[in-house]
């Protein structure tokens, strides 16, 4: 498949995302889509760490919640200006991520997953139990919508949709730049084999920490958007159930692929939206579907497309090789 063709597909989807609200004209659908985009941003963070660096963090919802509560607490309790709070939130999350990263990255593989699972639960407990700060289970209310930027206001679902879409596209662009650079190659080398990466002179400690901090930054950013969009926060957003939702989006879309997070997240958010009438029984459909997908396509939807591309280019190569061989024969 030629590169140009891929470019057109990407442009097609961007245009589709831009005109989507005009097509539906339905505020509820716009709302759902905005939420899906916010979750996607968090999943992109998870993908950088779990997909490209090979470290499955199960504290991701915790960092999402830290970003959300940072915006919430700064605007509600300190009455800080919205955009300052919004910019501070992912930075605060990344700083906390830095310290948690230093400790948790001393472990590997399953131990890392279990350790971060505990970290995520501790974050949940802190939010849940520290009533005086976070309002606990009562929830944090009165978070302002994004403040106007000059003449642009963000009070309607439509304007919020475009704000989130713009940030999502920026995030995808940044991730694209990272994974296609020497920095991304370094992450991938670590995922592939840490002893090999070390033997190639790569400081695995530094690079893993960088990936971890970046992943928490994007989780915090998504959380900050969530807070200003939903404008009410409860401790549940830090729960492990959310972490596993994010992980499911990533696995379905394709772990370690550029478009896996957005594909998986929008797809599942829409499917579960359409299966809402089944209530909790929808898991009866989801469970087997997910199992089948993991058995037949461990790298998700984008993984299937990637494998298919590899196969077709390998076929082309074989054909060309045969052709040049038969030409040689003819000459002889």
């Amino acid at each position, binding site marked *: 498949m030629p590169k140009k063709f891929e470019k057109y597909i990407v442009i097609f989807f961007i245009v589709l995302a831009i005109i989507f609200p005009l097509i539906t004209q339905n505020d509820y659908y716009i709302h759902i889509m905005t939420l899906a985009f916010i979750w996607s941003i968090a999943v992109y963070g998870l993908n950088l760490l779990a997909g490209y660096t090979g470290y499955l963090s199960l504290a991701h919802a915790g960092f999402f919640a830290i970003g959300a509560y940072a915006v919430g607490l700064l605007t509600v309790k300190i009455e800080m200006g919205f955009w300052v709070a919004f910019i501070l939130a992912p930075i605060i999350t990344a700083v906390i991520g830095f310290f948690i990263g230093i400790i948790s990255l001393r472990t590997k593989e399953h131990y890392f997953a279990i350790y971060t699972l505990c970290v995520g639960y501790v974050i949940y407990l802190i939010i849940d139990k520290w009533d005086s700060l976070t309002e606990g289970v009562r929830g944090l209310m009165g978070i302002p919508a994004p403040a106007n930027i000059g003449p642009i206001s963000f009070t309607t679902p439509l304007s919020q949709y475009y704000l989130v879409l713009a940030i999502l596209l920026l995030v995808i662009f940044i991730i694209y730049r990272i994974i296609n650079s020497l*920095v991304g*190659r370094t992450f*991938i080398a670590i995922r592939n084999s840490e*002893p090999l*990466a070390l*033997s*190639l*002179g790569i400081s695995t400690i530094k690079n893993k920490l*960088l990936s971890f901090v970046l992943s928490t930054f994007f989780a915090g950013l998504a959380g900050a958007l969530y807070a200003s969009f939903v404008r009410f926060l409860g401790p549940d957003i830090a729960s492990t159930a959310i972490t596993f939702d994010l992980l499911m989006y990533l696995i379905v879309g394709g772990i370690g692929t550029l478009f896996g997070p957005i594909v998986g997240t929008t797809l599942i958010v829409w499917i579960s939206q359409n299966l809402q009438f089944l209530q909790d029984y929808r898991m009866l459909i989801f469970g087997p579907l997910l199992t089948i997908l993991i058995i037949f396509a461990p790298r998700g939807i984008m993984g299937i497309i990637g494998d298919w591309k590899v196969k077709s280019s390998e076929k082309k190569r074989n054909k060309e090789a045969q052709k040049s061989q038969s030409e040689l024969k003819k000459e002889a």
Partner: protein
Amino acid sequence: MYLATKQLTKQFGGLHAVNEVDFTVEKGKINAIIGPNGAGKSTFFNLISGVHKPSSGQVIFKNVDISNLPSNKIAKLGVARTFQTTNLFEKSTVFENVIVGHRLRTNSNLFDAIFRTKRLQQEEERSKEKALEVLDFVGLTKSAERVVANISQEEKKRVAFALALATNPEIVFLDEPTAGVNPDETEELSSLIVKMKERGITVCLIEHKMQMIMEMADKIMVLNYGKKIAEGTPNEINNNEQVIEAYLGRSASA
């Protein structure tokens, strides 16, 4: 003295995997380490390349004690290595696999990546040129765009060499570079190793294939149960009583 170990020892629990080994690597030569399975050869390499910290003793490289340096710092000094089992990224192309080998000679950081700075572009260009250069050296130019999962075992070995060479090493440690390939391919890999030496790279390798070692090595050390039992030219090793008893006698057919 170029690279030397002094009373190098590694204990795993009660087991002396490497036991008080004194060894000097001859600069610009092919140095071989042989010994029966479990003799401690790989562990010896791991000690030099910083994968393991020695229990006691030292590794001296160009008059600097590198015994306690981490692997990545040792690699930066110009010491490269391959592993007994190749662990390449199977889903990626040969070329893509090798580019990262030059990473240690570049300085681009996250900022450079996000803003695609001039430095990043130059360093990426340099890494790609390096990858093409080493792939040419190991004879894989034609397979550069192939996915690693689809190439032969022998080609994978070559990719592993290319990766090590992309780090700009002055000395390479090859752990069983021809394990699992057929005799013809072994010949080809051997001539590639000789080519490395001709390029001015010091080679140190572990091998079980005696004929190959006897033909190409300038110097051989024999390990048995973690102890050095002999050291010398292929001829000296061939005639060493202790070696014949401990090693050749048992697997002379190898």
